């Protein structure tokens, strides 16, 4: 297995009862890149992310993260996971939440830096229940990256976030990637796709296409990414 890939999925399948959530997905994410997982709701993006962090086990195929077959608890120290809904302890302050996630990942420092990165340091003493939706989302991001993971999994991190904050988030993501972090960002918003270095298009549990935004455009035969996506989706279906 090539070590140049931070995340490597080969022929991965996952079913829930009769429902096939993922069907033979191959996917490769290089170290230090921002990989965009694109697809409509229910396409299998969250299932894929959960497989990568070992919350689900594949029925077929292999999931390899940082050279280790998943599920593997020892790799989890190097993974940061931001769930779709901001999963935080509402009775604790922003700082206490970040401190907690640092501690369970075996890290003591970095809390201040994480809070500063998401611009919540001034509000660190505020109880999470009193924070706005966007602030919670930022706090959730701080919790996911406080232990400086090598692989950061972000499940729709910009859902429900205003455009200004979305620009800020992408700014953080680029800075982290530049520092060597591998980021996998799921989204159903096409205009975010252009900010990724590479994209995987998922629909009905299959990977329709993979490549840089430029490659995807040429594969789909359209300068508009959304149209290219729809063209690729239609081609597979027929």
């Amino acid at each position, binding site marked *: 297995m090539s070590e140049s890939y931070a995340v490597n999925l080969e022929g991965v399948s996952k079913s*829930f009862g009769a429902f096939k959530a993922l069907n033979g997905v191959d996917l490769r994410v290089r170290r230090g890149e921002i990989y965009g997982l694109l697809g409509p709701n229910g396409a299998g993006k969250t299932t894929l992310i*959960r497989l990568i*962090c*070992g*919350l*689900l*086990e594949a029925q077929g195929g292999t999931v390899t993260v940082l050279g280790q077959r998943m*599920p593997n*608890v*020892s790799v*989890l*120290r190097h*993974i940061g*996971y931001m*769930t779709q*809904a*901001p*999963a*935080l*302890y*509402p009775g604790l302050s922003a700082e206490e939440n970040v401190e907690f*996630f640092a501690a*369970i*990942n*075996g890290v003591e420092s970095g809390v201040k830096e994480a809070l500063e990165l998401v611009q919540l340091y001034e509000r660190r003493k505020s109880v999470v229940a009193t924070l706005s939706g966007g602030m919670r989302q930022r706090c959730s991001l701080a*919790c996911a990256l406080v232990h400086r993971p090598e692989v950061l999994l972000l499940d729709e991190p910009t859902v429900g976030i205003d455009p200004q904050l979305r620009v800020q988030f992408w700014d953080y993501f680029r800075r982290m990637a530049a520092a060597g972090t591998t980021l996998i960002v799921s989204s159903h918003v096409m205009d975010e796709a252009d900010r990724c270095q590479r994209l995987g298009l998922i629909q009905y549990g299959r990977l329709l296409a993979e490549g840089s935004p430029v490659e995807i455009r040429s594969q789909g035969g359209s300068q508009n990414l959304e149209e290219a996506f729809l063209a690729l989706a239609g081609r597979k279906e027929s």
Partner: protein
Amino acid sequence: MSGHRVRAITRRLLQGFRRDRRTVALLFVAPIVILGLLGYLIRGSSTVPDVGIANQDTGPLGATVADALSRSTQIETTTISEADGDARLKDGSLVAYIVFPADFSQQAQGGQIAPEVHVEGSQPGQYAPVIQALGQSLISLAGSSAPKFQPKVTYLYGGTAYDTLDYFGAAFIGLIVFFLVFVITIVSFLNERSQGTLERLMASPLRRGEIVLGYMIGFTVLALIQAAEVLVFALAVLKIQNHGNVLLIFGMEALMAIAAVNLGIFLSMFARSEFQAVQFIPLVIVPQFLLSGIIFPVSSEPGALQWLSGVLPLTYAVNGMRDIMVKGADLSSSGLLLDAGVVAGFAILLIAAGTATLRRRLG
């Protein structure tokens, strides 16, 4: 006021229940189970106490009264020797024993009837039928011209100052801690699931045992502070009688708290919402409350229920608490060691069950 809108609310409510079969089942099955249990418990109980008779009377009266007592429907009599009496009270095979002293007949001729009644005494009111049966036997023998009936009552445990609160208090100190700790644990563990933080914990290097142990220590610390508060209030304010070591009571409470925390973690796996978690309260607490001997002594329960009582942790906890507080049992008492051992065993079993059911994977 619009009937249409009111109807919409009513319909919405009933539609929601239609999909939550468990709640519907609880609503209609639980009352029947609880009432049925109560009915069986009360109607099926054998409440006739076992009483020993030691007749040392040199005259004829002792034998006559003993004979009359053996025909009483209020008590069940056995002939014993006085020397065995206290031992039989301690091992629980007798509730009381009556001694007719050597000069019993003579005293009666002098106008005074004074049998010695020795009662176990840990349960208030339990010996009332004994005194009643004794009085009735004497009346049936002598009619209204009976001499003055002055039984001399001695208590193995408790005493005249010992009341119902002393009896229930010992059990309730343990029950309150068990109940509240269980409710708090099951709800907060469920919160961990519903607010999504459990998913994050599972995607971290935390091990299942670490989560369960962390929860256990956290809630046990809270429970112990609560237990200390309850104990101080019970002993200092309510002045519930205590003949045992306070540290032993505290130790027993700690064991119960640990069992309750892990029962909460274990059962939270079987609830999808706080709403469903709260439903475990009547299912877990009510049968234990009825069957653990808090109100109805286990020994008087119908046979099948005695067996059920025997597998409930609270039965041992309640028994242990009463042994310490009412009977002054210490660590040299094999009965107390058994009770503590069983509660500890349940705690360990529940720790294992809680850890095993906490799955890292979601599906």
